[in-house]
């Protein structure tokens, strides 16, 4: 196995974005071993509710059992492999395979085998043939799963990245309200390697230039002419990335002297503006003297390998599922405070949809760049030229309490977090 990532010199081989064999290795060594984001509990509130999700290339079922537990099951019959659930979502007491009728309980157990007595002579060891069940962690409604039964648990996997992850969940008023996902998940297909969105999300502030057309139009929450992320909050001093896990946030090193101030952008909708004003009132009571975690820790990041999140403006999760070396299936969820009034939800939804997804004015340019960068990296000569990630090389520094085990990028614009992403990738592939 040649070395694809040159840590010292800040170079990454183009092969890893286009090669079939490397892609196959990634499925085994990354997508079968890491914790992957599956969905949000608010998508399956009731026992029997299910949501058809993915882990890497594979279909899984996220389902809430009669015991209230969320489980994740491989969506492939143990008899001849047929997909046992073919709906996007719903409620069911059982999953019955259309092919020969084996049926599985909500916990994956094989509970029905037609002709068990006569055709099977009562001999099939049914206990061995449940749907493959992933190891699951339901952390505050965020459902994660992995096929790595012996590896680190979810909290080890997350390490100190957890506080960044949790900043996405933090209610707007700093209270104890819940987050919920808007109904429905955008799913679409982009002809790029899945690592482009990963690198973008862990910390590519440098590509802001590609969004100049968005800024010219002004699509932010403040209405026409306002900047796309909104204009609230502080800009972080540096990004944070965790070499041991490959996770990272586009913020994290906050100005210690920054005092809490009203952190939300202006909203052109009076109801939304008023609700945020009121939420901030409550925040100053709930957490006196504190800044919101998402304001301190950055507006988004990447949880290795492929969970891209945005804590605010917009508030959304995107999982970049690999679907071939040069194809990615993107899944995007939009998130709101559960207790937001209906019309505020409507207003922020409209903003989310004009920012993100295949119809999003911002995301469209990203996908164009990722896909043409992928194509242009395929050629025999192009493949010989590694990507350059020397921006800020050698300028990262160790993080400080309360963030342990991470590196600060040294500046707001730097490729040191991207290098953490690729170094982690190399570590896993080298195994």
């Amino acid at each position, binding site marked *: 196995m040649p070395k694809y990532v040159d840590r010292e010199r800040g170079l990454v081989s183009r092969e890893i974005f286009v090669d079939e064999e490397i892609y196959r290795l990634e499925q085994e060594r990354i997508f079968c071993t890491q914790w992957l984001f599956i969905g949000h509990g608010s998508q399956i509130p009731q026992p029997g509710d299910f949501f058809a999700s993915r882990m890497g290339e594979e279909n899984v079922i996220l389902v809430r059992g009669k015991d209230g537990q969320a489980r994740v099951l491989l969506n492939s019959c143990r008899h001849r492999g047929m997909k046992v659930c073919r709906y996007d979502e719903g409620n069911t007491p059982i999953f019955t395979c259309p092919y020969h009728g084996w049926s599985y309980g909500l916990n994956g157990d094989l509970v029905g085998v037609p002709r068990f007595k006569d055709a099977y002579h009562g001999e099939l060891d049914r206990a061995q043939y449940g749907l493959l069940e992933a190891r699951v962690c339901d952390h505050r409604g965020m459902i994660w799963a992995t096929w790595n039964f012996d590896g680190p648990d979810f909290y080890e996997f997350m390490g100190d990245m957890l506080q960044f992850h949790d900043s996405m969940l933090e209610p707007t008023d700093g209270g104890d309200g819940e987050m919920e996902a*808007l109904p429905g998940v955008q799913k*679409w*297909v982009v002809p790029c390697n899945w690592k482009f969105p990963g690198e973008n999300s862990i910390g590519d502030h440098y590509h802001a230039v590609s969004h100049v057309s968005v800024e010219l139009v002004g699509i932010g929450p403040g209405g026409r002419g306002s900047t796309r992320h909104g204009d609230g909050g502080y800009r972080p001093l540096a990004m944070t990335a965790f070499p041991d896990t490959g996770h990272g946030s586009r913020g994290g090193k906050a100005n210690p002297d920054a005092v809490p101030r009203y952190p939300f952008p202006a909203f052109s909708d009076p109801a939304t503006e008023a609700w945020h004003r009121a939420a901030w009132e409550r925040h100053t009571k709930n957490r006196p003297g504190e800044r919101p975690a998402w304001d301190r820790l950055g507006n988004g990041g990447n949880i290795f390998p492929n969970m891209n999140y945005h804590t605010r403006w917009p508030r959304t999760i995107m999982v970049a599922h690999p679907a071939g070396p040069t194809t990615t299936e993107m899944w995007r969820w939009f998130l709101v405070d559960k207790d937001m009034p209906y019309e505020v939800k409507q207003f922020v939804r409209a903003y989310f949809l004009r920012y993100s997804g295949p119809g999003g004015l911002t995301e469209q340019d990203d996908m164009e760049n990722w896909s043409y960068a992928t194509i242009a990296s395929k050629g025999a000569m192009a493949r010989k030229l590694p990507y350059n990630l020397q921006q800020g090389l050698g300028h990262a520094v160790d993080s400080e309490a309360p963030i342990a085990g991470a590196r600060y990028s040294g500046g707001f614009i730097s490729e040191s977090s991207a290098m953490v992403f690729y170094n982690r990738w190399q570590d896993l592939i080298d195994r």
Partner: protein
Amino acid sequence: MTATSEDQLERLLLRESVSEFFAAEYDLLDRRELSEWLALFADDAVYTVPLQRNVKYDHLERENALGPLDTAWFADTKDTLSQRVEQIQTGVHWAEEPVSRSAHLVTNVRIVERSPEHGPAQTVSTRCRILVYRNRLEREVDLFVGVREDKLRRRDATWEIVERTVFLEQNVLLAKNLTLFF
């Protein structure tokens, strides 16, 4: 001319007027006269492209995610539509620079409702099929084939679009982006 055919004729002229309007509209899109296209929308226009779910036969009413809080491909007003147009017109919206080629087809135009029932129609609800071909740079091709529902309101001798809903008949969107209009 009999009364029947008089009536038929009136219906025919109405459908013709809508068909012509739609054909002229799609000429504007394919000729990229986007500002002119935008002008066809009413100021209170709503432009929706919903997600579509895989559901059981007996839950077909859940197929189209048309709930007001449902995630959608588009949930636009005239204002956001105009932002999309302006972005393309900056000349630095890379997803549409160089500009994609397109051909927009509209067929099966039907008037499904009109108001008032008699006399010159002031608003009509229509259903049609659309096929949109996009070809970009060297070899990128997307094909969209769907059902479109429009509500039109009389504007002088012609129409303006008040509501448009486009059913792309896809679940996973088989395109990298939606920089085009339907």
